[in-house]
């Protein structure tokens, strides 16, 4: 069978707010996606009905409330800037849910480690885990400096005492990086910039299950174009279908480093 339900829907912008320059939230009325999404999955958003920019942009969902979903959008390029500029009443085409949901946590205690706006999909995962019967996980937020305080307040408002904050210069929370929160963790789910993800993979002990978000430039999002593959020990694997979260032990880190151009 082809997929059971449609993959695209028009969603109405119902709210949103800037957090810090170049980062904001967009809230959308999207009943089908709100019903079908699971933590760990993502969606693609396309603003323009025109042909440029052409492709949808992959985005993490930071919250699902009733029929509404919240996206955290960083202004990385033309597509994301257009999303951030949307006002209530605007329409967006959303494609999703895409990717594989998080597996059930296997090794307590679970830590959710977000670098900057990478914390978005982990906040949504935290909501669902808290509603479940298991242990409430700790959220770790790593940011460069105190200018990220509005994001820290947003996360703190949601997860309260379950938050640990690290900043590179110590001006917000503890001085350090999310790596400093690995000790004692049984399992870590991490989402953030490539440098943070690589550092986490380096300092994670081999027995720890570390799931890392490795989304790439994405074309179709539904597994057709093979444009977003991640090098793994089993060969190239799609971030949009088998990912976007990968077990760090499966990733071919050398090849990934070449792909990201930082070798």
């Amino acid at each position, binding site marked *: *069978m*082809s*997929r059971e*339900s*449609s*993959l*695209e829907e028009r969603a109405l912008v119902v709210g949103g707010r800037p957090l810090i320059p170049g980062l904001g939230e967009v809230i959308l009325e999207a009943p089908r996606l709100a019903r079908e999404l699971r933590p760990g999955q993502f969606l693609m958003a*396309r603003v323009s009905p025109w*042909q*440029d*920019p*052409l*492709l*949808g942009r992959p985005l993490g969902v930071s919250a699902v409330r009733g029929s509404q979903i919240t996206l955290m959008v960083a202004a990385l390029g033309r597509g994301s800037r257009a999303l951030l500029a949307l006002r209530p009443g605007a329409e967006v*085409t959303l*494609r999703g849910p895409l990717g594989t949901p998080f597996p059930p946590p296997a090794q307590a205690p679970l830590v959710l480690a977000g670098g900057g706006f990478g914390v978005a999909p982990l906040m949504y995962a935290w909501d669902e885990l808290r509603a479940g019967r298991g242990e409430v996980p700790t959220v770790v937020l790593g940011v460069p400096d105190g200018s990220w305080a509005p994001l820290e307040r947003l996360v703190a408002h949601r997860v309260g005492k379950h938050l640990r904050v690290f900043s590179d210069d110590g001006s917000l929370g503890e001085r350090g990086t999310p790596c400093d929160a690995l000790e004692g963790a049984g399992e870590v789910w991490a989402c953030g910039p490539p440098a943070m993800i690589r550092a986490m993979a380096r300092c994670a002990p081999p027995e720890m299950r570390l799931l890392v978000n490795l989304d*790439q*430039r*994405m*074309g*179709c999002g*539904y*597994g*057709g*174009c*093979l*444009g*977003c*593959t991640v*090098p793994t020990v089993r*060969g*190239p694997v799609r971030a949009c*279908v088998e990912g976007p979260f990968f077990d760090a032990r499966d990733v071919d880190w050398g*090849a990934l480093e*070449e*792909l990201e*151009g930082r070798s």
Partner: protein
Amino acid sequence: MRKRSVQTRVGGVILDSPLIVASGVWPLERDLWPREPLPFVGAACTKGITLEPREGNPGVRLWETPAGVLNSVGLQNGGVRSFVERDLPEMAREGVPLVANVAPLTEEDFDPLFGALEAGAEHLAAVELNLSCPNVACGGAAWGVTAKGVSRAVALARSRWRGPLWVKLTPQAADLGATARAAEDRGADAVVVANTWLGMAFDVERHRPALARVVGGLSGPAIFPLALRCVWDVAGSVSIPVVGCGGVTTGNDVISMLLAGASAVEVGTALMADLGAAKAMMEAVEGHLERFGLDTISSLVGAGRRA
């Protein structure tokens, strides 16, 4: 089943819609197929299938450009045996006519590649011989750039495949009309015109070409006028049906391709961007037929060529 008015015929295949999913954008796993375009397409081309499994190209594979996308995927696929045994029977259950896009990388590939394909022939409406994939450093690109290379490849394929054989040409050929005629002379049932154009982009943050192989194939609305011109030229050079391919995104693009002489069109990047594109295109085409009081789209095919 679409209306009779939008049926078309391409090299021995009757299609319920002139839209064909182009190779490269549709998963081989049927359970991943988005359902939106399916009622509006007449056929779907598979990802490029090679004799042996291929991991594809390393590095960044996609790079968005103005109204387009550069790709350097490099024919990642599980090889023809896995395609015929695992993917194809399941794909066929959907009921959409399937066109296997096959990419022989050497002359020696033809025999075992088509031999393996034969076992799945009952599920295939046609084979699309890929002579144009610009991503494979050796082999693939070479076939389509000269009439001689096309002659050789099509002759090899024709002697091994009795079913409908479509030949997908490359716009990198110096004389596209000559390569199209070579395909026709060697027994192709249709030519697909064209494929991606070679292009490049720089990642200015790294001072390096964006794609590891430097060049990639450009697709999307940016190339539509180039592809349309190719269809116009080739439709004047051959008498077999022409399938237009390259940047088709809107109903007007479909109609333009038909007017230029295409019997059908392939749609790829438009679906990557917008799964609703096939529906929108067919509604526009049907609206056009109605406005002009035309009974069938066949009355549009080549109509723009008449004085």
